[in-house]
C-alpha cells in the first residue's frame, strides 16, 4: 500500500472497526433473542405436558383405581380406611376369576362375535355405500333416507321386537342370534358413502369404459382408496361389538354362548362379596379393547377426519 493513502486507510479501518463492533453487538442481540425464544418454547412445552398429564390422570382415575382394586385382597376393600393402593398386593382375584367362570370360553365367544360383526359390517356397508354413491336407480334417494332414518330409532326401542324375531327363528342362545342382527349399520353406510362421494364420478365411469365390473371396481379401486376409512370403521365396530351388553344378555342363556361382558356379571351373582374378583375380570377383558385401540388409533383418527378434510 502506498504512503499517500495511509491516512485514508486509517480512517477506513476505524470505520471498519466500528462496523465490526456494531455487527458483533447485533449478533449478540440475535443470539440472546434465540435463547429467549428457545426458553419460552421449552416453558410452553413443559406446561402443556404437565396440564395434559394432570388431565389424563383425572380421566384415568377410575381405571387406575380399578386396576388397584383388582390386586387387593377383598378384606382390604371392605374396611372404613381409605385404601387407594393395595397394602398386600395379590393375584388371588385373577386366579379366582379364571377358576370360577370359563373366562377363556367367554373371550373366545366375544372375539368370534365381535370379529364376525366387524367383517360383516365392513362388507355390507361398503357395498351399500357403493350403490348409494355410484349407481343410478329409481328410489335411490328415498332408500338412503330410510336407511338414515333407522339411525334415529334408539336400539332399546326395538330390542324386544328383535328378541321376538330371533326367538321365532329359533336362534336364541346361538352365534347366529348374537351376530346376524348386527351385520350392517346405518352409521357405517353413511361413513363409507361420505368417503366415496369425495371421489369424482368420472373415476367410476372411466373404470366402466375400461370394462371393469362393479365388484372389481369396489375391490380393486375403492377398497385400496378407502383403507383408512375401513381401518377406522373396523376399530370402531369391533370395540362397540366387544362392549355389547344388553343384546347378548337377552339372547344367551348358557355358558357356551356367553360373551365376556355377561360372563363378568356372573362373577358378581355367584358370590355377593366379590367386587374385587369382578374387577379383576374386568381388568383382564379390557386388555383386548385397549390393545385394539392402541394398534388402530392412527387409522381411527385418520379415517374419522380424512373424510372431512379433503386433500
Amino acid at each position, binding site marked *: 500500500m502506498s504512503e499517500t493513502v495511509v491516512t485514508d486507510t486509517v480512517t477506513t479501518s476505524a470505520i471498519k472497526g466500528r462496523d465490526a463492533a456494531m455487527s458483533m453487538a447485533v449478533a449478540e442481540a440475535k443470539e440472546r433473542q434465540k435463547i429467549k425464544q428457545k426458553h419460552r418454547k421449552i416453558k410452553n412445552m413443559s406446561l402443556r405436558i404437565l396440564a395434559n398429564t394432570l388431565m389424563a390422570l383425572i380421566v384415568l382415575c377410575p381405571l387406575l383405581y380399578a386396576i388397584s382394586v383388582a390386586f387387593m385382597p377383598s378384606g382390604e376393600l371392605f374396611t372404613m380406611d381409605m385404601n387407594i393402593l393395595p397394602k398386600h398386593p395379590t393375584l388371588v382375584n385373577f386366579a379366582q376369576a379364571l377358576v370360577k367362570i370359563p373366562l377363556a370360553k367367554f373371550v373366545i365367544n366375544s372375539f368370534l362375535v365381535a370379529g364376525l360383526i366387524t367383517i360383516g359390517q365392513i362388507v355390507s356397508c361398503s357395498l351399500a355405500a357403493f350403490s348409494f354413491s355410484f349407481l343410478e336407480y329409481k328410489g335411490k334417494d328415498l332408500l338412503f333416507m330410510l336407511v338414515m332414518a333407522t339411525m334415529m330409532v334408539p336400539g332399546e326401542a326395538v330390542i324386544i321386537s328383535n328378541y321376538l324375531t330371533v326367538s321365532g327363528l329359533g336362534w336364541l342362545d346361538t352365534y347366529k342370534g348374537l351376530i346376524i342382527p348386527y351385520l350392517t349399520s346405518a352409521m357405517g353406510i353413511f361413513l363409507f358413502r361420505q368417503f366415496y362421494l369425495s371421489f369424482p364420478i*368420472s373415476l367410476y*365411469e*372411466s*373404470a366402466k*369404459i*375400461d*370394462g*371393469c365390473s362393479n365388484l372389481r371396481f369396489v375391490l380393486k*379401486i375403492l377398497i385400496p382408496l378407502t383403507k383408512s376409512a375401513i381401518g377406522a370403521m373396523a376399530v370402531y365396530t369391533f370395540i362397540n361389538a366387544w362392549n355389547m351388553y344388553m343384546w347378548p344378555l337377552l339372547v344367551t342363556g348358557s355358558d357356551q354362548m356367553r360373551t365376556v361382558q355377561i360372563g363378568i356379571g356372573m362373577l358378581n351373582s355367584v358370590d355377593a362379596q366379590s367386587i374385587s374378583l369382578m374387577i379383576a375380570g374386568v381388568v383382564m377383558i379390557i386388555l383386548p379393547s385397549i390393545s385394539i385401540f392402541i394398534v388402530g388409533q392412527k387409522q381411527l383418527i385418520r379415517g374419522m377426519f380424512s373424510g372431512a378434510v379433503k386433500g
Partner: protein
Amino acid sequence: MAEVVLKNVYKTYGENVNVVKDFNLEVKEKEFIVFVGPSGCGKSTTLRMIAGLEEISDGELYLQDEFANFLEPKERNLAFVFQSYALYPTMSVYENIAFSLRVRKVNKDEVDKRVREVAEMLGLTAVLPNRPKDLSGGQKQRVAIGNAIIRNPKLLLMDEPLSNLDAKLRTQMRVELAKIHEKLQNTIIYVTHDQIEAMTLGTRIVVMKDGIIQQVDSPKKLYQNPINRFVASFIGSPSMNFMDGRIQINGDHMYFDVLTKSRFDEKSKFLLPNKVKRALEDRFIRGNEAILGIRPEKFSYKQKSENDQYIDVWVHARELLGSDIYAYFEFQGKQMIASVPADTEVEVDSHVRLYIDLTDACVFDKETEENYMYIDSREEKRA
C-alpha cells in the same frame, strides 16, 4: 363404413328440458371430429351418450353400423379421456395404463409390451413406476391418454382433455394429439369450448348452440362460409365485427347503408362488391335491414384496392401480438377490432381512416341472423 351415426338424437332432463335437440351426424372412419360451442350447449352430454354414460332420451345411435342405444359402455369398444383425467390414485402409472388390458385378462407379456410402447410414444417411460399424484398436469393428461389408447380403440372420445393445462402446455399437447391421431389412424370425437383447439385439430367441426347443431364443416369452410351470425362470431379469433345497416339498391349498384354514424364517421355508405351483390339478389331480404360481418383482418390502414370502402374511427387501444397488432375502436357503440400487420404504425387515441375489403364480407338477416352469403356445399355438389 360409418363409425358413428346419430339420428334425431335428443337428451331430455325431467319433463321437457331438452339439452340436446334433434342431433344428426355421421362420422366416418379416421375422422377427427370436434364438437365446439359455448359452455353448457350440450357437447359433453352428446359425447357421453355416444359413450353410453348417459341414456339417449330419443333417437338412434349406431356404432360401426350396429344399433347401439342400449349397449353397455364396455361393449361399445371405445375409449374416453376425461377432463379431470380420472386416474386411479392408488395405482402406478404403469398399472393405470395397463388397467383396461388387465380387466380383459390379456397375458402379462403382451400387456408389458403394449404399455412400454404407449409409454414410449407419450414420453412416460421414466415415470412408469410413479403414482399419479407425483406427476405434473401434462403428464397426468398423457397417462389418461395412454390408458385410453392402449386398447387401440377404433373410436376415441375426449371431453375437454386439455382445459386443465396451462396455455403453453396446451399448445404442445395439441400438436401431440394431432400426431397421435395420425399414427393410430382411429376415429376421434373431441369436445372443446375453445375454437382455436377446434380449428387446429378437427378435420370436421360441429358447432353447437343450445343443444342444436349449427353447422358441420371443415375448419376452413367454417371460417369462410359460416351459416349464421353465431358461427361467424364463434369461429375465428379475434371474432368477426358486426355492423347494423340497410341494404339499398341504386340503379346497378348495391349499397350497405350504415345505420348510426360514429362521431368521426363522414361516409356511411359502402358500395357492395359484385360477389355480395349477386348473392343478395338471389335472396329475399326482409325489410332490407341487415347486418354486415367483417373479419378483423379485412381492415387495413392502407388502401389496397380502389374497391376498398372506409370508415373513420377513433382507436382507443392496441395490442401487439408478434406478427399482428389489434387496434380497438368503437363503432355503433360496440367495440370492434382491426387486425393489421405488426409493421403498421398504430397510434392509441388517434383518429384513423380504416379501409375495408368487402370481397369476403358476410351479410346476415337482421332477424334470423342467417348468412345470405352461405353456400350450402350439398347444393353445390348437386348443381
